[in-house]
């Protein structure tokens, strides 16, 4: 089920974001919580905000966006990061 379900996120530009040298500080208005995001979390949120996607679909788009090779490892990393974002309430599944 997890393989096929689609992940959603709010539009990234809706969040107040402050960029520092090492991380991005994101204020999530819906929850009132602040998140410190390291790469590639902001890119994942940007892509999901544009269009909901499966893990597979998001991995493809993310690798293209960052100009890196798409392999098993990339797929696993995206899966883990999505779990974290889901636990933080920043993405959700339909």
């Amino acid at each position, binding site marked *: 089920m997890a393989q096929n379900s689609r992940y959603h996120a709010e539009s990234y530009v809706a969040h107040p974001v402050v960029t520092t040298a090492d991380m991005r500080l994101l204020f999530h*208005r*819906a*929850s*009132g919580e602040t998140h410190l995001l390291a790469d590639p979390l902001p890119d994942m949120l940007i892509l999901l905000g544009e269009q909901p996607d499966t893990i597979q679909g998001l991995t493809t788009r993310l690798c293209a966006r960052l100009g890196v090779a798409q392999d098993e490892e990339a797929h696993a990393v995206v899966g883990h990061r999505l779990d974290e974002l889901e636990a933080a*309430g920043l993405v*959700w599944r339909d």
Partner: protein
Amino acid sequence: MRDALPLVRALTDPASVDHIMPDDWTALLSIARAERLIGSLAVRLKERDLPVSVMEALEAARVQAAFDHVQARWEVELTRRLLAPLGIRPILLKGSAFVVAGLAAGEGRMVGDLDILLPADQLNKAEAALLVGGYEWAKDDPYTQAYYRRWMHELPPLIHAERGTMIDVHHTILPLTARPTPDAPALVADAVDIAPGLATLSPADMIVHAACHLIADGDMAGGLRNLWDIDRLVRDFSRQANFWPMLAERSGVHQMREPVARTLRLTHQLYETPVDHAVAGHTRASDALFVRRLLSRDGWGRQTNRATRLAFYIRSHWMRMPPLMLARHLWIKARS
């Protein structure tokens, strides 16, 4: 100040604060905080020309209320995400319902734990989903679990392990031990959708539920806030043509005619709420006792009239439990 009447007056008639003295302001702010009505007061006085320090204190209350509302909405959303895949539509109760439904009762109101109502046959599924979703029992001893499951109108309280937030899952609105027995299936059947996957009670049932709280559940502590909720709800709902006949009918269906009538008389007496006297009934001598109890606070925000308070505490437990069970409950409470 000898009682909380200035707070009641400021809420009902904001112009009443225009000429009060500095000391009266200090007392009014303390009383409003103690009654958890400072946010509602801030909303009511927003347009008035107030001393600068008072405006700042009320602005702080608005900031707090705004934060409460963000948290309340977020808890509702996370609960919806857990339950929607199971086809379960939670019926929001109390503060969360007022805020998410955009009712005047929610404006400036502090919101605590999330309370939801579910049909009894969805309880097990919902409980399992919440436990998987990170909630844990606040108290996991066998007595608490057995007590809630056998006699109460809700599951034992659940706390989210990471967020620390609490959810009360109800299947009816009064303990099963209470003498009135509200018609839980009717509450669910009449619930109103307010957003995808979310509902509230119908207007009339919302009033009945608020009356349950005020009269039957608790020792009237914080009663001014509950009554203010009812005032705002009645003013909102009574614009609907069939509200009063509906309320008369529903308070009968839920065996709550007397408590609803008493609640309406009290809110009319304190907040000048327009009520239908056919539903509110005639003033009773004991109404004055309730009013005295509701207003018992001094200018330092301290509760006064301890004797009346104790009497109301015993009374509220008496209403909720048959005598033998009351003895058992108090005995176990005393030992724990």
